């Protein structure tokens, strides 16, 4: 009764073929990641030490550590977050909770999608025009961070909207039926249940901001600075630009130095991503409905 017909056998073969094909594609995906990480560790791992992380570059950046660049990246990312998170979250709340579906919100949506598609070098030039020159911030952490903030705004807005959307509509309606205003509903029910997703998006934004080079190179990141930034109007070194510089612009750099910088940079990004993933898993376990 359950004997296999020729058709059954054929179907099974085709099914196996596709399974193996897709598996191969997946494996192919991991290969570059593994190669990059392995190369960085093999060639740059030898230079990594506490001293490398916490001392200044010396001998025309051919020796010493990367502390000013590391600290500069932290500065730039922190200020960028301070600007983009409140703005992006507020915009997402407006779009998802208040705005109706009309031409105005559609134009805004289109603008956000387009903003996400603008090449980073164009953002850089915009940053020079707007923040460095027009607002008169000069080449500074503030100008660089605001440029990055604008560039990553779509990430914040989209991820925040996704997490707001994940809160079931029935919860909102139950609140509205009780006589709650939209804001009361957002504050008491929607935001507390979306905050996890919003934070996940923010962490992803951090990892993206950390690695960007073009937008900061004209707006606030310096080739080499012998001192640390004291405030947002100072210039600073940054890891990503430092990597570019030691890899291509300075003669006589030992081989392991650029690889070491790249390793630190990628470690920062991966660390952020892992925190984001761990956070998401933790919150999924705490799901409330």
């Amino acid at each position, binding site marked *: 009764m359950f004997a296999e017909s020729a058709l059954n056998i054929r179907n099974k073969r085709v099914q196996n073929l596709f399974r193996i094909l897709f598996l191969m594609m997946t494996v192919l995906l991991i290969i570059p990641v593994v190669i990059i990480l392995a190369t960085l560790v093999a060639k740059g791992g030898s230079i990594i030490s506490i001293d490398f992380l916490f001392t200044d570059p010396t001998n025309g950046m051919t020796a010493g550590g990367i502390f000013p660049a590391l600290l500069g990246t932290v500065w730039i990312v922190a200020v960028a977050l301070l600007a983009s998170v409140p703005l992006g979250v507020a915009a997402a709340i407006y779009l998802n909770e208040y705005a109706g579906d009309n031409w105005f919100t559609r134009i805004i949506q289109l603008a956000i999608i387009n903003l996400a598609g603008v090449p980073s070098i164009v953002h850089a030039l915009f940053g020079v025009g707007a923040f460095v020159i027009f607002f008169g911030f000069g080449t500074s952490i503030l100008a660089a961070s605001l440029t990055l903030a604008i560039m990553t705004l779509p990430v914040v807005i989209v991820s925040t909207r996704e997490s707001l959307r994940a809160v079931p509509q*029935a*919860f909102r309606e*139950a609140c*509205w*039926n*009780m*006589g709650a205003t939209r804001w009361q509903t957002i504050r008491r029910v929607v935001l507390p249940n979306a905050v996890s997703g919003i934070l996940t998006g923010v962490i992803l934004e951090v990892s993206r901001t950390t690695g960007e080079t073009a937008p900061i190179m004209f707006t606030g990141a310096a080739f080499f600075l012998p001192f640390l930034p004291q405030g947002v109007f100072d210039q600073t070194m940054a890891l990503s630009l430092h990597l570019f510089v030691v890899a291509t612009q300075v003669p006589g750099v030992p081989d392991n130095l650029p690889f070491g910088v790249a390793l630190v940079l990628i470690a920062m990004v991966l660390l952020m991503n892992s925190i984001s993933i761990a956070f998401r898993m933790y919150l999924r376990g705490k799901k409330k409905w």
Partner: protein
Amino acid sequence: MVDMNVNLAAANKIEDPAYSAPVKLGVSDLTIRYGGTPALSGVNLEVREHEIFGIIGPANAGKTSFLKTLNRMDTFNTNMSVEGEILFNGLNVQNLKNIYALRSRIGVVFPLPVGLPLTIYENVALSPRLRGIRRKSELDVIVERCLSRAALWDEVKDRLDSLGSLLSGGQQQRLTIARALSQEPDLLMLDEFSIAVDPVTTMRIEDVLKELKHDMTIILVTNLVQQARRLADRTAFFLEGECVEVGITEDLFTGEVQDQRTRDYVEGKFG
């Protein structure tokens, strides 16, 4: 001869207490449209104080749309337009400035229980908090009273801090009722509350409703005609966007109906 019987029935109804109570909710010429297509048209009815007013009818009859217009939830649906007059406590709800106050006077229970993703305590304390009550002692009293009236207190009193959205369906529905009661409503509207609830819980909630009737007016939308018969003082029959008939509930079942469609529906011939 037939005419005389109808008149006699009408005369009896005037004596009926359900007819002599003051009007809580007066609806006249109500028409609801979704993007031009009428979902309900030409509804005229009155809901009296302290009665359970049943609304029966098959799906797509316009029952839920009717409820939504009563507490102005139509404002959230730009596609929805409402014509006619709805007087709640003598005030036209369409002209009310403070629709939030109106909504807070009307408790709503949905077909599928909506336990908010808050603790059991906070589910019930939310509405008092929105009204500005902050004192813990005061909130404690309200929470216990509302949960008790909804016949849920004994089951949850030891775990008020666990999540309301994780209770069983029947418990969540009673939590929803407790939450509605925490609004101290004049009017309680239940929209097919027993759809996702087991029969035992359904009977418990029905007993709760019979008690609550002494303190408030209840509109009970149900697709179970026997539930309407058990609970409702008067019942309206909605069919395909039309209010076919309004009458003393028992009359609908004893055959004293004016419309053949009502008789057919009540007897289970369609729907």
